[in-house]
């Protein structure tokens, strides 16, 4: 019998999260170094203008507490983010929750419009041969248009016919997010293998039966992959739509106001809010995906 050295057994939670934590800590460290380097001249200039003597320690501390730094330190962003989220009632225009909700509602409506439009287009493309050739190039072209250039036109045109507020933003968001859905669902609807289609033929199934009993269920996994891409694009679309339109509320408006007044910390806090929303949205879609996959008998 050879005595084996006792193995070190890490706790499963540690095993699961340690790599993530290490990466995050490393990134934060890099960020602090960058903060010091980028804000150094700014802070030194301020000290020298006031003719106050300063130590290196004061200089470095100054880079992390500047009011309008080039690059805010992580703790400043977290502080401002927390203040903006929790410091005000959610109905106040100073609350990030309020702005987040404005953007989120446009995102939802845009995503629903875009996903529905994408699915309908995909079904048409798969079933009508002439559309496949005539429609797809236009769909691809539509995504090459710089949305920042088009957004004001869309807002003005829609405003002229009496559409204001949420809907124009939702339409711009939908315009950006339908594309992955079209591509994914076309791929999914054409994914059943020839044998599965031959089987339907031997049973002389109607086109509607082939669609609902074969093509659509085959497309569902592809649909969810597309939806996950699409919902983040939809959020970006809603934010972008707020930029050129002088929106008073929303994450985009917050970004714009921040850049007008040089409030870099506010910009970063708004960006954090956008990422939190994006993560949340993908999480929701992933949850629904997992639930649907379970209903459809996928391997656990």
């Amino acid at each position, binding site marked *: 019998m050879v005595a084996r050295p006792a193995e070190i057994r890490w706790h499963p939670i540690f095993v699961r999260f340690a790599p993530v934590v290490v990466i995050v800590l490393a990134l934060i460290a890099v960020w602090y170094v960058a903060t010091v380097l980028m804000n150094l001249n700014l802070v030194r200039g301020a000290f020298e203008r006031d003719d106050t003597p300063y130590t290196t320690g004061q200089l470095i501390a100054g880079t992390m507490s500047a009011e309008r730094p080039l690059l805010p330190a992580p703790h400043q962003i977290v502080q401002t983010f927390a203040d903006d989220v929790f410091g005000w009632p959610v109905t106040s225009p100073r609350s990030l929750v309020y702005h987040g909700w404005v953007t989120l509602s446009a995102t939802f409506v845009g995503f629903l419009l875009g996903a529905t439009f994408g699915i309908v287009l995909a079904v048409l493309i798969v079933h009508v041969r002439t559309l496949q050739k005539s429609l797809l190039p236009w769909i691809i072209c539509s995504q090459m248009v710089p949305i920042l250039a088009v957004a004001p036109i869309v807002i003005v045109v829609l405003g002229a016919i009496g559409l204001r507020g949420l809907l124009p933003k939702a339409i711009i968001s939908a315009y950006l997010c339908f594309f992955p859905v079209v591509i994914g669902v076309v791929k999914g609807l054409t994914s059943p293998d020839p044998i599965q289609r*031959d*089987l339907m033929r*031997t*049973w002389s199934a109607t086109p509607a039966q082939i669609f609902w009993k074969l093509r659509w*269920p085959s497309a*569902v996994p592809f649909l969810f992959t597309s939806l996950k891409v699409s919902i983040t694009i939809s959020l970006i679309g809603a934010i972008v739509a707020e930029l050129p339109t002088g929106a008073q509320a929303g994450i985009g408006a917050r970004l714009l106001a921040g850049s007008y007044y040089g409030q870099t910390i506010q910009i970063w806090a708004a960006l954090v809010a956008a990422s939190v929303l994006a993560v949340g949205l993908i999480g929701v879609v992933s949850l629904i995906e997992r639930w649907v996959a379970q209903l*459809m*008998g996928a391997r656990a």
Partner: protein
Amino acid sequence: MILRSAISLRAEGRNSASGPALATPLHVVEPMRAPDEPNHVTRPGALAVSAHGISLTFQTADGEVEALSNVDLDIAEGDFVSFIGPSGCGKTTLLRVIADLERPTAGTILINGVTSEQARVQRHYGYIFQAPALYPWRTIERNVMLPLEIMGFDAAERRKRVAQYLELVNLSGFERKYPWQLSGGMQQRASIARALSFEPALLLMDEPFGALDEIVRDHLNEQLLRLWNQTGKTVVFVTHSIPEAVFLSTKIVVMSPRPGRIIDVISCNFPRDRTLEIRETPEFLKIAQRVRSGLRSGHSYDE
């Protein structure tokens, strides 16, 4: 049930209209019967498949490929007919022509006395592919139910038949499993139950056990034979295994490639309730030998 009788009426209507091509009363639309009654359709002399001068040329990028050349074939009802030959001899193509999955470029084909298209539309046959092709999002039970849903059977009838045919292929107890939870052999049995569920008179099987190991294959061959014996269906079976063909068939159709054609049709009259042991008898070996020499004369062994 209502639907089936409507189909049979339609079939008769078409028959009487189709005139001289149907001099003999060939058509068979299964009569209505209680599901538990054994399904023996034995009408001696009636033809399940009658093909004349079938040719099929595929247009490919490298020019024309003659997949079938002037094929004549009659298959009597209740027969178990195997197509055997090397890859590219057109055996699968011929089966697909019978199923109306391919259209011949020349020749005529009648299935139970109607054209292959009518036979397909009226659901005269069940087709079993080399792969089970079960729909992965449906449980075994709902896979077997799928053709019944498509054909408009009511819910009670669907449930009854699913139970009946899953039992027939020894899959009772696996109703709620998904395909990936079953072995390859079990999946193929489920696909056979699916093909049987709407009770077609004709079973078309395209190398159904080709992807399975020999032990499972022997077992399924025995089960298939028992099923054929019980139900009296006509079976057309594509294979490239000589022992499989000889063991299963009442008739072996030997085919040869370039162009795909029939070389020999060999009768094989073992009792209907034969067992795997007959493979050691001299009669079995003699027929196997004849199949092999047929294949050789068709240059099937040439490179």
